[in-house]
């Protein structure tokens, strides 16, 4: 990946800015996205550049997502923001029963080219502002789900989502907004459903994304000192999910650890485990290990969150136990 270093938040903004400039059908809206530029600063400046196509809504989450569905039906390409990924439940009817089913219920009479962006994860925000809700979305047929981890993917996947005719939910991790990385110049679009091997290794496959990907990569360095070479796989999108790259990696390594920032029970790791049983059973030397939040909500205090969310040490220890 070459290109200048860009912050994750700025890469997202660049995707929005370009989409607004290129396509008059794109509108960007949500709470505090216009004049304030978003509570995490992603949309800063867009209202000044693009005027009323970037607008603030009332605190009405059902409206925000429902309006996106209605707009998309008629040919706009809405990009809505929910301030926190937990709020998919505040707009539950519209997310899980409208965006997911509308096209199917009406046998494809209309497409839903819509995107919902939202911030997930982290600590200090409490049980209703911290959740990584990707598993709920992934269990729902009809929704596309992205969990970009790098600025390049943030920009590329958001761009792809906006250009897609399908309803996309893009989870942006709070702790990544300030991180930097190279982003290709020009019109950068990522292809959904393509996992990226972030690190090559032969002893174990670690699947992780967003903040857990950073920890997994750090853990892989520690493990490397012991002679354990972990392959680190970033799925980038969870729906579509790149089964081939996962299966290919695990068939090589024979072991898999999934690390996620969500409850273990029925977390994405459960699906990965089941997929590996179905597609890599004979190749698995040892059972899958799932690391995630033990089954409690996300507390507010950062140090309590730290006690729950897998750490670099937790990952190192789990891999050692598994591979060792």
């Amino acid at each position, binding site marked *: 990946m070459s290109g200048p270093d860009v912050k994750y938040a700025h890469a997202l903004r660049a995707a929005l800015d370009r989409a607004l400039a290129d396509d008059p*059908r794109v*509108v960007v809206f949500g709470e505090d996205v216009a004049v304030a530029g978003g509570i995490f600063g992603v949309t800063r400046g867009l209202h000044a550049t693009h005027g009323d*196509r970037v607008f603030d*809504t*009332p605190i*009405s989450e*059902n*409206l925000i*997502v*429902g*309006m*996106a*569905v*209605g*707009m*998309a*039906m*008629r*040919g*706009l390409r*809405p990009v809505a923001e929910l301030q926190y990924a937990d709020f998919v439940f505040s707009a539950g*009817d*519209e997310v899980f*029963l*409208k965006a997911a*089913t*509308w*096209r*199917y*219920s*009406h*046998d*494809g*009479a*209309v*497409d839903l080219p819509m995107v919902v962006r939202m911030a997930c994860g982290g600590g200090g925000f409490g049980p209703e502002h911290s959740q990584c809700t990707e598993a709920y979305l992934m269990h729902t*047929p*009809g929704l596309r789900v992205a969990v970009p981890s790098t600025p390049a993917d943030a920009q590329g996947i958001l761009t792809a989502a906006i250009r897609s*005719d*399908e309803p996309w939910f893009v989870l942006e991790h709070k702790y990544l907004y300030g991180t930097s990385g190279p982003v290709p110049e020009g019109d950068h679009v990522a292809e959904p459903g393509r996992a990226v091997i972030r690190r090559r290794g032969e002893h174990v496959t670690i699947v992780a994304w967003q903040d857990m990907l950073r920890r997994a990569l750090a853990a892989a360095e520690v493990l490397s000192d012991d002679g354990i070479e972990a392959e680190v796989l970033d799925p980038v999108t969870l729906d579509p999910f790149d089964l081939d790259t996962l299966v290919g990696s695990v068939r090589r390594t024979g072991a898999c650890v999934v690390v996620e920032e969500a409850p273990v029970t029925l977390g994405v790791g459960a699906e990965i485990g089941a997929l590996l049983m179905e597609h890599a059973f004979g190749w698995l030397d040892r059972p899958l290990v799932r690391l995630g939040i033990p089954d409690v909500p996300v507390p507010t205090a950062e140090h309590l969150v730290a006690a729950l969310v897998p750490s670099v040490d937790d990952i190192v220890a789990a891999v050692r136990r598994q591979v060792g």
Partner: protein
Amino acid sequence: MLPAELRLRILRTAVLTRRFEERAARLARAGAIPAAIHLGTGQEVGQIAALAALRPDDPMLYGHRGAGYWFARGISPATVLADIAYREGGTNRGKGGVMHVVDPARGVLGESGTVGGNFVLGAGIAFADRQLGRDTVTIVFFGDGTSNRGQFHEAANFAAIARLPLVLFCENNGWGLSVPASVSTSVDDIATRAAGYGMPGVVVDGCDPDAVFAAVAAAAARARAGGGPTLIEAKVPRIPAHFLGDKEHYRTDADRQAAVDRDPLPRLVADVRARGLLDDDGLAALEAEVAAELDAAFDDVLARPLVAPATAFEGLYP
């Protein structure tokens, strides 16, 4: 006052709707077609008059009560029956059945399965059309019971702020399934809630096509001119049970009879007769014509195969 031709067109569509639903209910009760129908008996005249006041391409999200919405937009009885009966030639090939008849070219955009979902979708539709330079007015139909969902509030507030070209058309039939409006809704007239959003709220007799037409025409003109949304509440009778299998244990005979007495269809028939627009022969001819159309449609559709099972796998994504 409705021009004569339009009045007759409303009558014809109402008769078509009534007879269609009667047949469909009969077949459903006999088990020949699925029974997931909510009859619109007594509400169809208001529905059809409301749509007569709009352009044929104005976006609509309809309610769950009856086929009048679709016939008013020119969708054929055969098409609707095919959707009801999961046959080929409908609009949603068994995916949505009677709940999700759709025809975007005619502005027929669908219905939220969870009642009240229409409000926020309708706001988006109205916003989109304006943004895309279309001078349409979006209409959202909903029942009195449905008005108590939170989405009503969120959509009404935003529609008023954004001056969306939107008509919120409440069909208040006094019941939300088994619950009387007096038990579910804290005000007698839902239209009084409009003031809380700074939008006009109008109560009309939903059995009076002139009144309904005038109210919707005024709201649409206002909306098209940039004046924003209007909440119209049409008082209508609930003549049928909520759904086909509903025994209405919760309802008195007197209440049901009072609804029957308000039936707008005999009233409309008497009205066109009194105006000299149609005599007995004309009415008989109309009924005969409708019957012939429905005979043909029902025969045609019921001879068609069910949609192929494989269609279940299609339609989720482009």
